[in-house]
């Protein structure tokens, strides 16, 4: 009997010790590819929507401040979804690689199984330690194959102006209709963070 006791309590101690001695967990981003393929095998993970470079990632829900303007709390959500949108070479005066600022970015997640909208809304603008992005904590409690759509409104809709004179102006103009980017066959399973 003492042997059993020693053995199983050893297991408990080992489990407890391994928990207690765990290293900082950090976090991991999960890329969402355009066609549901493996990010490592995909030829192009991100979409080049001239003049933009668009990527979608998700990871664990995060705390944000101010909390009363941050939408869903960590407990109420399943993922933190991000739209990383940067400028490509363009004739609007932005540097290639600059973050797309002053835009409204909507998202819509539609089940490919039922056709129902699982989540939709507008992203909030925020900064993480790797810079600015559009994102939100989202409740997505059902595992399913989804189509994720980003609807990127022009900064002009938010009153962003362009110089147009001969001396200082830019040649290009913002897009008139919102740009829609679809990430299809997103095989999503609910994760425990």
């Amino acid at each position: 009997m003492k042997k059993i006791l020693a053995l199983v309590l050893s297991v408990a101690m080992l489990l407890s010790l391994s928990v207690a001695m765990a290293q900082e967990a950090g976090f991991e981003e999960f890329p969402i590819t355009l066609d549901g393929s493996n990010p490592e095998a995909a030829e192009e993970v991100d979409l080049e929507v001239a003049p933009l470079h668009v990527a979608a990632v998700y990871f664990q829900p995060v705390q944000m401040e101010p909390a009363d303007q941050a939408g869903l709390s960590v407990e109420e959500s399943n993922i933190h979804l991000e739209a990383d949108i940067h400028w490509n070479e363009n004739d609007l005066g932005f540097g290639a690689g600059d973050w797309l600022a002053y835009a409204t970015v909507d998202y819509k997640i539609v089940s490919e199984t039922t056709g129902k909208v699982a989540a939709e809304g507008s992203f909030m603008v925020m900064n993480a330690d790797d810079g600015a992005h559009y994102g939100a904590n989202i409740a997505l409690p059902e595992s399913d194959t989804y189509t994720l759509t980003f609807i990127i409104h022009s900064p002009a809709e938010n009153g962003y102006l362009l110089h147009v004179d001969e001396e200082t102006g830019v040649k290009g103009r913002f897009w008139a209709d919102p740009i829609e980017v679809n990430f299809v066959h997103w095989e999503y399973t609910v994760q425990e963070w």
Partner: protein
Amino acid sequence: MLKYLETVTEDMLMASVLICLFWSMCRLAFGRKGDRFILIGMIAGVVSSAVMAWMKNTTSKIATNQWNFFIFLATMILTILFGIFSAIFARKHRQLTFYGSDTEAGIGTGGWIVGITGALLTALLLFYELPDVLAYPVNFETAGKGFLSMEYFSRLAGFLLALLLVWLYVRFLYRCAMALDSTKTVLAVMNAALLFNAFRCFGLALSKWTARPRWLSWMPPYSSSRYPWAFPLAKFTTNGTLFFVLVIVGLSLIIPLILFLRNIRIRGEYANPAQHRKLKSVSRSRRRIALAAAFFFTLCLLNLTVVRAYNNREVELSPPETYEIRGEEIFIPMEQVSDGNLHRFEYITDNNVNVRWIIVRKPGAGSYGVGLDACDVCGTAGYYQRGEQVVCKRCDVVMNINTIGFKGGCNPIPLNYRIDGGSIIFQMSDILAAEREFK
């Protein structure tokens, strides 16, 4: 209260029933020695769960996803081993009646292997389920009202009631197994339940792999074309927690059912009326135990189905109220909206878009919270009133009424208005500009 009643029941019921089946099997096979195996497994599980709960809630060292992947794998392997060992052991000793044997020499090497595997499996089942359950009471959402509030105590009541309900069911299930005194039956039920549990653990482990995390880069990379079966299985198991709970707990009901059927009529010989009365009494007592188990099973079942459906029912938005349009302005008398309740209004535009907005008088102030019945995060789901709270219909977030009218997060999108002559006045142009939000 209802949320924790059904959540804790779902969290704890399956693990508790499986552990109860292990315990019954070990008790029937090894006598009191069997109790010790499972008790030690439970202590190991509770201790390590408490450490895990503390670490999860006080540090950022726990990557739950990674831990759970290995817990699922280990549980799956131990589940299969325990099932195989138990079957072999029972087959080898099927001519013996073990119950009551409590000698040192009674269990042999095979018994030790079964007992230790059962203890480890018990510890692992608790190690997966308990950390979150242990942490619930310190993480109850009380809308900032703290521990000494009705919100906290109602959630605590739901939490404790669920634990009591689960305990009562497994308690009567155990008594049924003891009264049935059939290692073979308990073993058959346990192995059927273990089979489903192993399948579930496999699917849950797959759900981590199909997400393609970097920490699983040592495994073959997931590809839907190469492994077309993997994602559907992962989807089924992650969405089907209730299915597995109901199947495993439903299987356990076979034990009370058999006990009841066997005791409808008196079994055994009797020589005189006194012995007859005794046999009748034993049968009646066993039927009552079986019925009690069935009763608490039914309560658990209702909790996971009816209570859940009620708790997650779709909230109907209150009907829109009337107002007056004068020229290009909308007038709403202040006395119509000054009772502290949520008031909803709508205007259908020429494009047949239904623009909705809400007004609520702020508590302890003469000002009003005014905004569209939509927010940036949850779209046009709308808001409803729950008691004195204003709640987002989609995300169930309770709004701070004092910040309604301010921009950001799940707050209603602000809508311009002015107060004049006892009315709240909106410009039609502002209402039409909000059309975009409701398209």
